[in-house]
């Protein structure tokens, strides 16, 4: 056995990480996560540029790039006002959904514990249906109703799940109970409504980016930016919480306030997206697990989930618009994604047991 005489290079950060120098030390960045993030971001750019070329007035890639950066008249209008906002929305909303899912799945320690399954989307839907059936609906009113509905549902679920603290398990079950309740309320309201009203509510309920323009993006931009900052603040205590309440407490993290904060940030992320575009299912469920598997990381990477979520939503929207004959709302495409994801999950589980 040869002895390695070369002096070991002094490690500056834990194995498998890159050091990002900041004032006060360095931030360890997981190497593989960085790689996956870079690849995924490139994929997003490719899909985005492709999407900008597609539509009733096809353009070539050079034309698109020219139209983006200089005034090309009609082409710039198509790209800048019709197509780009939708793509930006898909990326931003997808990232928010992915991040929200990552936060919740880490909090509940369950890969299925995503906010749309636990019920916040259903509450938002209830709020929207109420506004549509009572007030006739207009974008702002419906969005406000959805936001209120989602947040109220989250508050109710939290309070009901609280018993000397909130455990992931209780949170999930209470969420399911409340979802079932609200889901039947929704069905009931739709049953009693006139067909046209029910239809327009159902359309909203399918989740679509077609009504999202620069105005809507502008309104959601600031809250989402604040929430992005909030997410970054909350990640480190959340990582400690992953180790169990006792270990987290021993490290100086107060479990309950952190859990509450994580839930607030997570719910706010998905509520804003739902308010702007209707409930979009399964991005929050699938993106975190896909990100985790790709980057082979410890726990669920929040940044990675955001990037994967952005990619999934963008891809889903492009598919819904250009691949599906007759164009389908993005929410329907994500349901199919969700179905495939669940089947893959099942096959995985089945294979593990046989």
């Amino acid at each position, binding site marked *: 056995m040869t002895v390695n005489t070369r002096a070991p290079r002094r*490690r*500056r*950060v*834990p*194995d*498998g990480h890159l*050091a990002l120098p*900041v*004032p*006060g*030390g*360095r*931030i*360890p960045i997981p190497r593989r996560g960085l790689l996956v993030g870079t690849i995924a971001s490139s994929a997003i750019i490719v899909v985005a540029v492709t999407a900008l070329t597609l539509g009733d007035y096809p353009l070539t890639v050079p034309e698109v790039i020219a139209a983006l950066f200089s005034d090309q008249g009609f082409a710039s209008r198509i790209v800048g006002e019709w197509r780009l906002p939708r793509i930006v929305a898909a990326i931003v909303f997808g990232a928010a959904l992915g991040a929200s899912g990552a936060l919740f799945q880490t909090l509940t*320690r369950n890969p299925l514990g995503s906010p749309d399954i636990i019920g916040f989307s259903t509450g938002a839907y209830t709020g929207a249906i109420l506004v549509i059936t009572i007030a006739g609906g207009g974008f702002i009113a419906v969005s406000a109703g959805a936001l209120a509905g989602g947040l109220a549902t989250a508050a109710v679920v939290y309070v009901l799940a609280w018993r*000397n603290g909130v455990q992931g398990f209780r949170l999930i079950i209470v969420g399911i109970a409340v979802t079932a309740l609200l889901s039947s309320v929704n069905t009931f309201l739709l049953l009693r409504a006139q067909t046209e009203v029910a239809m327009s509510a159902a359309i909203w309920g399918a989740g679509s980016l077609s009504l999202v323009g620069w105005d809507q993006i502008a309104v959601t931009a600031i809250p989402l930016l604040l929430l992005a900052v909030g997410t970054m*603040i909350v990640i*480190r205590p959340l*990582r*400690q919480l*992953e*180790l*169990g309440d*006792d*270990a987290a*407490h*021993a*490290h*100086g*993290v*107060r479990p309950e306030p952190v859990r509450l904060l994580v839930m607030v940030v997570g719910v706010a992320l998905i509520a804003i997206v739902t308010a702007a575009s209707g409930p979009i299912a399964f991005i929050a469920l699938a993106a975190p697990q896909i990100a*985790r598997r790709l980057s*082979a*990381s*410890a*726990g669920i990477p929040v940044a990675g989930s955001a990037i994967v979520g952005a990619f999934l939503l963008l891809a889903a929207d492009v598919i819904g618009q250009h691949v599906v004959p007759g164009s389908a709302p993005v929410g329907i495409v994500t349901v199919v994604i969700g179905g495939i994801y669940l089947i893959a999950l099942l096959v995985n589980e089945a294979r593990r047991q046989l």
Partner: protein
Amino acid sequence: MTAPDTRLHADDLTLAYDRRVVSEQLSISIPDQSFTVIVGPNACGKSTLLRALSRLLLPSRGEVVLDGKAISSYRAKEAARIIGLLPQSSISPEGITVVDLVGRGRYPHQGLIRQWTDQDQDAVEAAMLATNIVDLRARQVDELSGGQRQRVWAAMALAQQTPILLLDEPTTFLDIAHQIELLDLFADLHSAGNTLVAVLHDLNHASRYATHLVAMRDGRVIAEGAPREIVTSTLVREVFGLECRVIEDPATGTPMVVPESRAVRTARA
């Protein structure tokens, strides 16, 4: 009795879970730089006391005092830099590597302004060296054996670099070789000047390693002091309800409890 100048002591505690009261008017003082071990039968309140000392459980009455101030008045991270805890059960996130998990123990020393520094790196390396897991550093914690995993958790607690370390039944589920290995590690830590408070279920291990032994029953402290002074067959009978003989441990000279066998008892009766 209570020495008011110890760093960590508890005054007149009432400890309860929901409605169930575990201890009342419990006072205890942890001698500085001692290796204190708390023993007692199941459900005697030893783990509860440890949890109170580590801030995990808020006493309904009385307070735990650290460095002259009530422990509840400390900011969470502040306290975490002075008192560390190796909990009984912890969860390891799926897919986490050993070196990452040990690194999580550095959290109390970090913040928005102070990210990962050389001190953190050194603390992690030293902790892994002390617990003999350096060659496991890239392995996933899920794949390790029970004994190895416990050493990783111990390393995480060590990386926290606290002068006072609380250990909640650290040797459960370990085979005897690993139990002794871990206890020897703690003894080394103690020799280096740290204060250790451990809950152990094995009375003989406790007698061997403790410099200060606390025997509890039904939420009360029955006796405390150096093992040589307090471990007698009378004490064992009173605390555990077990008939025994106490002899001198041939290896260390500390008291060793040898339970009486039934044949002997029947013969005597």
